[in-house]
C-alpha cells in the first residue's frame, strides 16, 4: 500500500440509528455486542450501578435511545490498550437501551483514574455515547463521579464552563450500594454538555 500521498477522502457521514435498531444492536435472543452489565468475575474495581435517564427538550423521556459506554477498569486501564489488562474478560464497553420512561441501567465497576498520553491524570470517568431517532450523529459526553477531588483538575472537565460541569457529574443515590443517577438532557437550559474530539 505504498502509494503517493493523496487528498484525504471525505468520510462516510453519520445517520440516525432510527427507531428500529434494537433487534440488531441490543438483541434479546443472542449475546449483544456489549451489554448493560460489564461485570465479569475478573473485573478489577468496585461494583457500581449507573441509573440513567434521557430527556428531550420538553423534559419528556426518550424511550428509544441507545446508550454506549466505554471505560477503564478499576486500575485505570483500557482493554485492548494497556497490556496489563490482556487476558481479562472485562471489555470496558457497555450498551443499554432506554425503557418507556427513558431509563437505562449500566452495571459496571468504578473506573480508576486514567493517566493519558501526556501523563496527565484524569478523574474517574465513563465515556457515554447517545444514539436515537432524531439524533443525527452520536452525542458524546463523559460521566464523572461526585466527591472526587480530581474532578477539579481533570483535563477535560476543568475546561468546561464551571456552571455547566454538574451536568456531567453523576449523583450518588445509595450509600453502601454505590448507585449513581445520571440524567442526560438532550436540549434545554440545563442541557448536558456534549463533547467533540
Amino acid at each position, binding site marked *: *500500500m*505504498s502509494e503517493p500521498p*493523496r487528498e*484525504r*477522502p*471525505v*468520510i*462516510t*457521514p*453519520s*445517520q*440516525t*440509528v*432510527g*427507531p*428500529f*435498531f*434494537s*433487534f*440488531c*444492536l441490543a*438483541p434479546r435472543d*443472542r*449475546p449483544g*455486542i456489549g451489554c448493560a452489565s460489564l461485570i465479569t468475575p475478573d473485573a478489577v474495581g468496585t461494583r457500581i450501578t449507573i441509573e440513567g435517564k434521557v430527556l428531550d*427538550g420538553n423534559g*419528556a423521556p*426518550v424511550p*428509544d435511545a441507545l446508550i454506549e459506554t*466505554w471505560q477503564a477498569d478499576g486500575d485505570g486501564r*483500557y482493554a*485492548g*490498550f494497556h497490556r496489563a489488562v490482556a487476558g481479562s474478560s472485562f*471489555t*470496558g464497553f457497555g450498551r443499554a437501551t432506554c425503557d418507556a420512561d427513558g431509563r437505562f441501567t449500566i452495571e459496571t465497576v468504578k473506573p480508576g483514574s*486514567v*493517566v*493519558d*498520553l501526556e501523563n*496527565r491524570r484524569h478523574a474517574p470517568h465513563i*465515556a457515554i*455515547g447517545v444514539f*436515537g*431517532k*432524531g*439524533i*443525527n450523529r*452520536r*452525542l*458524546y459526553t*463523559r460521566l464523572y463521579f461526585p466527591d472526587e477531588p480530581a474532578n477539579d483538575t481533570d483535563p*477535560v472537565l476543568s*475546561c*468546561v464552563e464551571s456552571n455547566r460541569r454538574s451536568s456531567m457529574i453523576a449523583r450518588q443515590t445509595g450509600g453502601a450500594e454505590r448507585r449513581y443517577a445520571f440524567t442526560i438532557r*438532550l*436540549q434545554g437550559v440545563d*442541557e448536558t454538555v*456534549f463533547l*467533540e*474530539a
Partner: protein
Amino acid sequence: MDESTLFEYAPESLAAHPAPYSESYRFTHKRAPLRPIHAMAPTITELTGPSFGAEVLNAHDDDLTRQHEGEPIGERIIVCGQVVDEEGCGVPGNLIEIWQANAAGRYAHEVDTHDAPLDPNFTGSGRVLTDAEGRYRFTTIKPGAYPVGGLDNVWRPSHIHLSLFGPSMLSRLVTQMYFPGDPLLAFDTILNTAPAHSRDRMVAALDRSATQSEWAIAYRFDIVLRGRRPASRRQSGRDV
C-alpha cells in the same frame, strides 16, 4: 497495542457529518442539543475503544437470506465493499452490524406498525467482520421503502443500516446505505441531513464484477471511517 498504534483524528473531517438540528427532519427538533458542542482535544479515552472478533459471529450472520427455515421473499442482493481510513488504508477485523426492513418495507421490530407483511423467513439483522484488507460482503434481500409513521406522506427510500466501530471511540460510525437511482433520495429528510458534499458517500453503486450470474445483483458500498494511522505505520497497510 501501544501508543504508536493509535490513529490520528483531524477535526476538519467532522464537516462531513450532519448538524444535530435539521429543520426538515422533525424528530431532531426536541432532541438536538442547541448549545454549541464543546470541542476538546482527544485523550486516551477517546483514542481507544472496544474491538470485536469472530467470537461474536453466528452462522449465517453474513447471509440474511439463510437465517430461517425457508427463503425470504424479495430481490436477493449482495452488498460488498471496503472499509478504509482517511488515508484509504483498509481497516481489518472491523465488526459491522447490519439491520434493515424486509422487502415489503417492514421491520421485524415490535415498534414498527407499518401495514405491510412481516416475512417469517427474514429478520433483517446481520454481522460481518472485515478481512485483512478491510473488505466485507453480505447477502440479503433488497429492503422496501416505507412511510414514516405519523407524518403526512413522508417515505423512507430503501436503505440498510450499518454500525461500525473502527479503531477508537472517534471512528465509531452509524450510517445508512442507500440504493442508486432511487427517486425517493431527493426527498429523504434523513439522507439530506448530511451536507451536500458527503451525501453521495452513502449511495451504493451497482457492482457488475461482484454480481453472481443467475443468482444476485451486487452493490458496492465503500465506507470511509474517520482517522488515519500515524505516519510511521502507514506503509504496512494493516494493524499489528
